[in-house]
């Protein structure tokens, strides 16, 4: 049985993400602070999430995520499950207090679509590439390091610490074993590494 390419890519992402699984404190950089005794993190919501990525990944907001190539992910397709409201038609006046069962699914779908969008644009116009820049020869540690810098800078708007660099390097090496070293394989690695950060708790909450 032949698995369709997008599904294969998503499966690869799920398998590969396990390599990036972090202990609870590992996402914090520099020095570990104690866990907040009374954490007050908030969900960024679909609109703010896409605004941030549109700015960081240099994709016009109206083009960054369209379901069926027509429906804006935050404003139409996943409006309520991603924390929006619709007081006029379905009478939801305030964001849902609790995330719905579909929220994480929609969020992952949006993250994957945004990253796919950016990598596709990078492949189409390498001169203005933002994330995906193919290695001159074989992808090596320097290529992975540069990609890590771009991803953290663009998606989380900060530098990666040493532990994060190490984990990302291991993640990319693990991906390479599945995707190969070709430019297409490198693009897939870029896409999946982008997805890993764009779907992280740090990207979704504040």
């Amino acid at each position, binding site marked *: 049985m032949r698995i369709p390419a997008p599904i294969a890519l998503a499966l690869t992402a799920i398998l590969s993400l396990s390599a990036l699984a972090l202990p609870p404190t590992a996402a*914090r*950089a*520099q*020095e*570990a*602070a*104690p*866990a*907040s*005794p*009374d*954490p*007050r*993190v*908030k969900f*960024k919501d679909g*609109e*703010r999430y896409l*605004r*941030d990525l549109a*700015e960081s990944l240099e994709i016009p907001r109206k083009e960054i995520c369209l379901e069926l190539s027509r429906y804006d992910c935050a404003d139409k397709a996943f409006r309520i499950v991603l924390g929006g*409201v619709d*007081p*006029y*038609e379905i009478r939801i*006046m*305030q964001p849902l207090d609790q995330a719905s069962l579909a929220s994480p699914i929609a969020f992952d779908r949006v993250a994957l679509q945004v990253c796919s969008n950016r990598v596709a644009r990078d492949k189409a116009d390498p001169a203005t590439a933002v994330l995906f820049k193919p290695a001159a020869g074989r992808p090596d540690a320097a290529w992975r390091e540069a990609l890590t810098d771009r991803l953290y*800078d663009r998606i989380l*708007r*900060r530098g990666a610490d040493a532990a994060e660099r190490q984990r990302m390097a291991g993640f990319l090496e693990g991906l390479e074993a599945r995707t190969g070293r070709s430019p297409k394989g490198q693009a897939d690695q870029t896409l999946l590494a982008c997805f890993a950060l764009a779907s992280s708790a740090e990207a979704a909450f*504040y």
Partner: protein
Amino acid sequence: MSSGGVRGRTGPVAWAGVAAALGLSVVAAGLAGPANRAVAKPPASMEFCKIYPTAHVCAASPVVNCTTCHTVPPARNLFGEQVSANLAPGAARPLSDADFVAALPAALKAVESLDADGDGIPNLAELIAGSQPELASSRPTSASCTPGQARSAAAGRWNTCGYDPAHAYRKVTLDVCGRSPTRAETEAFRQLLPSESAWRGALANRLDQCLRTPYWLGVNGVLWNLANAKINPVDSIKAGPRAGSIPLADYEWDYNLFAWLNTGDRDVRGLLTGQDFVKRTSDSPPTFEPVPEDGMRALRQAGQTVPRDKRAGMITTRWFTTVNTMFTPIPRTTAAAAYRQYLGLDLARMQGLHPAVSEPADYDAKGVAAPACAVCHSTLDPLTYPFTRYDGIIRNNYNPNRLKNFVRTDGPRVVEAPEAGEIFGQKVANLMEWSQVAANSDAFAQKVVWDYWKLMIGREPGPADQAEFTLMWKGLKAQDKFNYRTERMLHALVLTEAYGRP
């Protein structure tokens, strides 16, 4: 206890049947007559906060929920049982409201040191801290760090043990501007951290910039959505631009007024007392201006037809009276909506009950004087009378003789309904006085701050937030602090630990 014998003879299944039958009998007895029945006392919700103003539940609202003493009223929870046992012992039941109110302080005092749920924490400590005295799994929580944790946190990227200015800066940018700060902005802000005045200035500047953005002030922006539950828009009856199939009124003007009164140097009490009618002149950047009175007629269904001296902010607009009053002579829904939306008191949850003497008079023959209805209608009906002179659908005007139109449908006594009413136990001559009492109440200030608190902090004020929440709403009222200016209050809110502690 003899019931053990019953269980021993008949087995658990039969016992369950007996218990069910007994339960039904108790409920039936409660419905049938006063003898020995459990009775919920609406005044308790207000009296409790007079006795314990520092209790957590009283910080966000002047009333407590019925569940402080009851499971489902009139059934009591463990704490309610203790209070009941100490409430005027020996006195005949049911107690009158006056006797109940007189006996409540002593009854509560008597159970302060008891421990209803047996979790080792006295009732009073739980009430003050905000945990539930009737639930063993609910205990006061501490948000404090050890000195070692505090040192470690202060050196980390986020200070999880105290106010973290960089975290607050990121939150303000996201909450109010709708985007994350850029990496350069964050790094520039972090450079200011050694100087408290410098970072405070930068944080205040960022907030001021964001408060003027379309994301905050624009159509479908943050302030707009904050008003959704108050305005209750319905597209099918919308008039004006993008009119619905039955255009009756235009809610966009209500959103404009809400945004106008919540920005700049404007008094937010105008939500209940204001007389301006405000036009959105641009959405990028968002700008507003009051409509001159002589320009009102041209607005037709969208305009405001109530004379200026009879207007009470958001609660006399064409939209508000259209969707709430409709064709009702005594528009209880309108009063209840105003009470809930602007004072945070939901009569359906028995909040804010202040029974008036000789009420409900039931002028419109709706049967509200029946005992089961009178519990709430003795507050709701006098709360409603000041709204009776305001037309709903179609006319949307003030009409002192309005009730004459309803004699045929609602009976001859409907014209006897007075314009004077009562709010918070205070008599008022008309809606103008009603709105003044409401706008100057603690409940109004608490509701304004509560809405912003939920928006900015992401949850209702919790036990650890009590002191800061109280500072905010009292500050909103204080002339020398925020003086009813919500933007001033927001500047203080983003400096609270509740907001700035990760």
